């Protein structure tokens, strides 16, 4: 393969030989028609030849016109192309006019092509820099929330640097990623979140790798929504693509311009769980100074002792509710971001360089996140007809995170805290009432202790960039070679201190733990692309593209753990009793593809594009690793075809339709059965039996059957849509309907263990996504100084798992008693959970002697994570230099599991636990079974004071599944650009100040008094919909300033 690459490069070099022919010289200057400013980088071409040059930074050019050359053509993106006869002239000055339509509608499509939006037969949506950065959100993905139809963007947690999941047009794949592919300047980059994701005990959201992208460096984002749009990218693009184009200095009118943006935002917790304030610490209605629950007596306000007796002393406090004891634990977080950039255009070149620094302090004390990024990008014309682009970004990021989940996580401790315990008074760990031995309860640990003594930090170094080399072989034939890489190391360090005390808190003793993990990732991507553009006749245009792609992705993951520490003094693997545990994992995948597209345009109103791609993948059986997939799309500009633009209020009306077929390969190493080092676990951390066993190695037959017969996965989809703009673009609609079917999904299908195995890789399922996307926008009001732009987006995706091998059920994970499953005939990600035993009428069956509900012997389906619909509302109002943007975001329907609810009920802190003043009551509408007859009669046994705790603490897990609907005031930003008259008196070129806020308000259904439903504790993978005691989400507000020198 390497040889092939060299060969192609060599050929490019040979081609440069064809350059010069003798003629005469023409010079001139190219300016902007409107401003009169010089335009650098304008292509100047002798018509009908391959001879050309481009203007320098002053807009000047000099060109040798070969004999026979009669006219010069001036071409520049965003401007109308101008052709001038040369005649006898030796100087030709040209003023180019802005092509309004083109400016708005040139978008970046697959492989980094720039195409006119109106010629595309598929849906894309572009988001500009201003919209991305108005809210001063550090995460690119979060900054898109509420602004794009058809895209589900869910931020997963409230910790600093936490992750976000981006899914376009519904989840399709069961075992592989469903997230959109992130492509920066034509090169795919990694957006994984190799988290401590589904560790129920000490999970940490360390963020996803798209967080490494600095939003201030982005010029625009174009979202390729369907498989048709992304077909040329192949397998990974079936989930759609987030095409990011970074700033390059393009369009700069000066040699150098310095931009500086600084913003400071403050954040606090968006949603605290609602708490009861009537009953305090205790159990069975009686006081109990050790308890971590609020099942004690009614508050009396009298002064009482609390906590342990330490050194013969005990603390006093009034026995009354502390309404804000949980809130007081959290601090104000902050994010301080500074970006300085330098950009400009010089002779035959543009450049952009930036440095950005983001520092985030979390709402949970001790948590923080930091990101530094340095980015450079330059474009040059090397010699005649050659152009090149080089871009490189280095990011250093990392943070200190708090652990989540059950066990010792901060949030888990906090929400169990009795209503009268003064949390802030637990902060001073040197106080003997607060340390490991003196802490009031043996059932939890001091959250401040866990913040100080159970730490997780990471440190990521990442470099991504690419080199692009283009050569115009002929006027209409271009070859481009682009090679890019993305690599990073993520070094993680987790520390859990030893606890060694005597007395009542002995149960929480722990040997301590220290672990280091290094994740290394490297991707290399190479594309060789040949494009040919030609007007075949007056009426027919032709754009042809053929290319070759080579991609390699490598992971290398090494973990070493000291599972018992010598002391608490230092964080190192040498701090150990015994021997460290080590584990390493590597994987590699390679893919070679060839692709092509042909696009025919007819009379500038009808376009037909055909594409095809063939991939050879290393993850499929070697003998049968090739797969081909085609797509076709049509765009019909009705307005242009029937001349509506001139004669009617319809300015633009495009109908588009497409069909696409996209293949996908398997996960690495699915084609062969293996043996694995013996390991058996029972779910409690650190209790495994792991071979070698006392020095004896042991390898067990892997529970997974490899499959040498795997076929590639396939997604076929069709889509129709329309884009209509009326009344001078005052009103615009974009609607799309799509239907995609993902078949032959390669799944690790669970098997009956009695087969001797737990699962096998099989082509085993079909997932269907059908949906509607609607974007309605308008400018209801506009004057010279004032404009109001309103845009509403609506998305409805209907997701069904149509077929699963053997009517099987595939678990995406979660809890044994409340799992998220893939099940035939149900939406992707349905909850299957323990439920009440119910009689045929659906009434709750209780135990006749206790009055407590019985649990059904078999689990039931209890809704899915898929929302019924989602939408966004974007309001932008500008008045002179002022701009106000307001974004609402909503998701309706869908379920989530809330451990917060379960814990609050167990601990008696949830408002519903004071129902009936905690007096005996009969569960409404409940029945008892008569003997074992299957007959039922009305229940007359009340729950007693004694077993109220048992009742609330032992409800079936399914009762913790709640409605995940929400509406958020996602973003408000107000900015003001100082008038030029004032700015001119300073040395600034531009001054803009603003204030912004994000996630300011949250509305949820009444039953959710617990949590922001966007939360998910298990990372940004396919396992969604679990609140498992993670850091609560936040709202933020702040101010910013932008200046230009």
């Amino acid at each position, binding site marked *: 393969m390497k040889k092939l690459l060299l060969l192609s490069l060599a050929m490019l070099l040979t081609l440069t030989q064809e350059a010069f022919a003798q003629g005469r010289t023409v010079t001139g200057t190219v300016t902007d028609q409107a401003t009169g400013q010089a335009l650098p980088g304008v292509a100047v071409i002798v018509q009908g030849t391959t001879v050309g040059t481009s203007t320098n930074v002053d807009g000047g050019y000099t060109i040798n016109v070969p004999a026979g050359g009669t006219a010069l053509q001036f071409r520049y993106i965003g401007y109308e192309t101008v052709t001038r006869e040369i005649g006898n002239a030796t100087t030709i000055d040209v003023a180019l006019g802005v092509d309004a339509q083109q400016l708005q509608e040139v978008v970046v499509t697959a492989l980094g092509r720039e195409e006119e939006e109106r010629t595309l037969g598929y849906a894309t949506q572009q988001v500009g820099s201003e919209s991305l950065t108005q809210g001063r959100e550090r995460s690119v993905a979060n900054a898109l929330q509420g602004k794009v139809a058809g895209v589900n963007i869910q931020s997963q947690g409230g910790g600093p640097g936490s992750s976000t999941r981006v899914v376009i047009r519904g989840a399709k794949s069961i075992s592989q990623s469903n997230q959109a592919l992130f492509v920066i300047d034509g090169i795919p980059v990694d957006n994984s979140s190799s988290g401590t994701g589904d560790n129920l005990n000490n999970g940490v959201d360390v963020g996803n790798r798209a967080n490494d992208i600095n939003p201030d460096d982005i010029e625009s984002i174009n979202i390729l929504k369907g498989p048709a749009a992304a077909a040329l990218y192949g397998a990974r693009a079936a989930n759609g693509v987030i095409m990011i184009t970074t700033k390059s200095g393009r369009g700069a009118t000066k040699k150098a311009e310095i931009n500086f943006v600084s913003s400071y935002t403050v954040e606090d917790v968006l949603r605290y769980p609602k708490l009861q304030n009537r009953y305090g610490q205790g159990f069975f209605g009686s006081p109990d100074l050790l308890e971590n629950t609020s099942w004690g007596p009614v508050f009396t306000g009298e002064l009482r002792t609390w906590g342990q007796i330490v050194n013969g002393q005990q603390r006093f406090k009034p026995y009354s509710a502390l309404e804000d004891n949980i809130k007081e634990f959290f601090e104000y977080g902050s994010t301080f971001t500074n970006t300085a950039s330098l950009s400009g255009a010089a002779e035959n070149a543009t450049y952009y360089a930036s440095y950005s620094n983001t520092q985030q302090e979390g709402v949970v004390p001790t948590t923080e996140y930091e990101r530094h990024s340095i980015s450079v990008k330059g474009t040059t014309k090397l010699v005649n007809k050659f152009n090149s682009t080089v871009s490189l970004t280095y990011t250093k990021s990392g943070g200190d995170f708090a652990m989540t989940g059950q066990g010792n996580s901060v949030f888990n401790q906090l929400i169990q805290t009795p209503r009268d315990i003064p949390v802030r008074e637990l902060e001073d760990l040197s106080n003997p009432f607060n340390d490991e031995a003196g802490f009031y309860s043996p059932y939890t640990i001091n959250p401040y202790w866990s913040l100080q003594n159970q730490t997780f930090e990471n440190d990521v170094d990442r470099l991504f960039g690419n080199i692009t080399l283009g050569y115009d072989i002929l006027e209409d034939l271009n070859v481009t070679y682009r090679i890019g890489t993305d690599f990073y190391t993520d070094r993680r360090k987790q520390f859990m201190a030893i606890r060694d005390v005597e007395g009542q808190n002995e149960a929480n003793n722990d040997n301590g733990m220290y672990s280091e993990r290094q994740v290394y990732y490297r991707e290399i991507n190479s594309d060789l692309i040949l494009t040919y553009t030609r007007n075949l006749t007056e009426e027919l245009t032709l754009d042809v593209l053929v290319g070759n792609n080579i991609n390699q992705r490598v992971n290398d993951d090494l973990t070493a753990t000291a599972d018992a520490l010598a002391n608490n003094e230092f964080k190192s693997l040498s701090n150990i009793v015994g021997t460290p545990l080590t584990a390493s994992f590597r994987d590699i995948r390679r893919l070679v593809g060839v692709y092509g597209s042909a696009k025919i345009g007819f009379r500038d109103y009808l376009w037909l594009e055909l594409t095809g791609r063939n991939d050879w993948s290393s993850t499929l059986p070697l003998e049968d690793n090739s797969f081909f997939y085609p797509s076709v799309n049509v765009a019909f500009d009705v307005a242009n075809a029937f001349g509506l633009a001139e004669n009617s209020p319809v300015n633009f009306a495009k109908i588009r339709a497409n069909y696409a077929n996209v293949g996908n390969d398997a996960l690495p190493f699915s084609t062969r059965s293996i043996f694995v080092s013996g390991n058996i676990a029972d779910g*409690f951390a650190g209790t495994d039996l792991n071979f070698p066993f006392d020095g004896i190695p042991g390898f067990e037959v892997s529970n997974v059957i490899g499959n040498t017969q795997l076929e590639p996965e396939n997604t076929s989809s069709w889509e129709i849509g329309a884009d209509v703009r009326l009344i001078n673009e005052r009103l615009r609609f974009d609607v799309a309907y799509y239907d995609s079917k993902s078949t032959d999904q390669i799944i690790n299908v669970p098997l009956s263990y009695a087969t001797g195995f737990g699962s096998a890789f099989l082509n085993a399922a079909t997932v269907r996504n059908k949906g509607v996307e609607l974007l309605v926008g308008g400018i209801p009001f506009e004057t010279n100084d004032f404009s109001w732009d309103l845009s509403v987006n609506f998305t409805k995706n209907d997701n069904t798992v149509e077929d699963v091998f053997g009517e099987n059920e595939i678990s995406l994970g979660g809890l044994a008693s409340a799992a998220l499953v893939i099940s035939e005939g149900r939406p992707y990600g349905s909850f299957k959970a323990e439920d009440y035993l119910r009689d045929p009428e659906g009434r709750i069956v209780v135990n006749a002697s206790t009055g407590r509900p019985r649990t059904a012997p078999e689990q039931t389906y209890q809704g899915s994570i898929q929302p019924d619909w989602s939408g966004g509302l974007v309001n932008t109002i500008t008045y002179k230099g002022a701009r106000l943007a307001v974004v609402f975001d909503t998701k309706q329907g869908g379920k989530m599991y809330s451990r917060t609810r379960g814990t609050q009920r167990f601990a008696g802190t949830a408002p519903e636990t004071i129902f009936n003043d905690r007096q005996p009551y009969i569960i409404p509408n409940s029945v008892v079974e008569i003997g074992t007859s299957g007959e039922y009669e009305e229940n007359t046994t009340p729950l007693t004071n004694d077993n109220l705790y048992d009742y609330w603490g032992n409800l079936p897990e399914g009762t913790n599944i709640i409605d995940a609907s929400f509406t958020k005031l996602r973003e408000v930003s107000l900015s003001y650009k100082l008038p030029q008259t004032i700015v001119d008196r300073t040395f600034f070129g531009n001054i803009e100040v603003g204030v912004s806020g994000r996630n300011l308000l949250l509305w949820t259904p009444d039953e959710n008094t617990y949590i922001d439903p966007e939360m998910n504790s298990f990372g940004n993978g396919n396992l969604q919909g679990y609140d498992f005691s993670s850091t609560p989400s936040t709202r933020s507000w702040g101010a910013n300033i932008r200046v230009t020198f």
Partner: protein
Amino acid sequence: MKNIYKYLLATVLASFAGLTSCDDFLDVNDDPNNPPTSTPELTLPAGEGELAYVLGNQFQFLGNFFAQHWTQAGAANQYCDLELYQITSSDYDARVWGELYAGALNDFRFVSNQATTNGQTNYAAIGEIMEAYTLQVITDAWGDVPASASLQGLENLNPEYEEQEVIYDNLITMLDSAIMLIDMDAPSPGDDDLVFNGDMELWMKFANTLKLKVYLRQAYVRPAVAQAGIQELYAEGAEFLEMGETADIEFADQTQNRNPFYQTQVVFRGGVDVVASSTILDYLQETADPRINEFFSPAQAGANAGSFVGVDQGVECTPDRSGAQANTVSKPGPAVASPTSAVPYITAAESYFLQAEAVARGWTGGVGDASELYAQGIRASFDYVGEDVAAVTAFLQQPDVAYAGGTVEEQVEQIITQKWVSFSGVQGFEAWTEYRRTGYPDFIEPSAASTLGADIIPKRLLYPNTESVRNTNYPGLVEIDVPVWWDVKD
């Protein structure tokens, strides 16, 4: 200009032609992290270890709670489900059913198959013996289960359930064929056999003892078959495991090599849950049994610090709970709750008690003395848990302990009661299983927290959830109070 086209064409062709040599480039799909093959030497220890982990962990909790050696402490509620007898189909699923079939059983099958191919006859024998042992554990827990249709991978994705009676017949066939394979002159395993270090004489005794156990399990449901089988064993002069020949897996005090009960309860849970059940503690005290010092430890704190105190079975999971912390009563002791505590498959004591029962039933053709074998069982138990064997002579003078003889059933009751004591904390699953078979000790009353009917102690486990969704031959719900086939005695 023509040259350009030529070059272009060459480039494009090269792109495609390059692909034919792409095979090497794409041949990177062999998992570098795990081996593609194994040997009986490498897989036998994995299977043995996995089985011990299940018996020493989840089945240890389950069995010792049901057989009332252990109970839930007051200040926690982790194991209240075991006291409430609320076992659901998600319990004992992937981590027990799954590990027994796809872990231990499939590994033993690989060992015997691969060993047969390689001509390693003794490995083949051990693989088959362990397969029989594991399968008996599975069927004793769940009743009718997939057996001969199991372990076939993609060949049979829906293994049929087989009647326990048929499975029991097959266990004998498997053991007979394994015994035939044992060849004292052929190479045998070394350290990789975690049970006997490749001592094939002991494996022979283990197989015989297991046969005895399989037959005796049928003593009430098919006495004729049991009797005939046992008579045949004795007629052949079969030897059984003797003092010091316990088949067990010794855990090591190293990271992730420690006894699983110690790891989950003592370390992970901080020892807050599991405490001594009054049922056994009272009995040990009544009989002045010195083993109390090994099975349990005295209360560490509170009014009873330093003495042995039990908790009434299940009471801490009822409204009558005291809420007292675990360290104010007795917890599992040094013989069962240490990092290195071994997990037995069959102890020497169990072997003697099995023989004693066979003799008491008169099925040995006059061979053996029930009273002496009973005493040997107690001695072997003292020996195993680390108590002075010499003390047994005095212990045997205790009125409830001294072998009283009497009817067959009276003898069996006495044998099983002491056998139950010997199982305390180490062989919980077998203690529960023998209780189900014989109804002894007769002083066991259901947990105070029971949600089942009066006098009912669970008689089986519910088929796991995974079977109901993954196996079309899933036989449907069988309630926890439905006895398995051999469980016919009241």
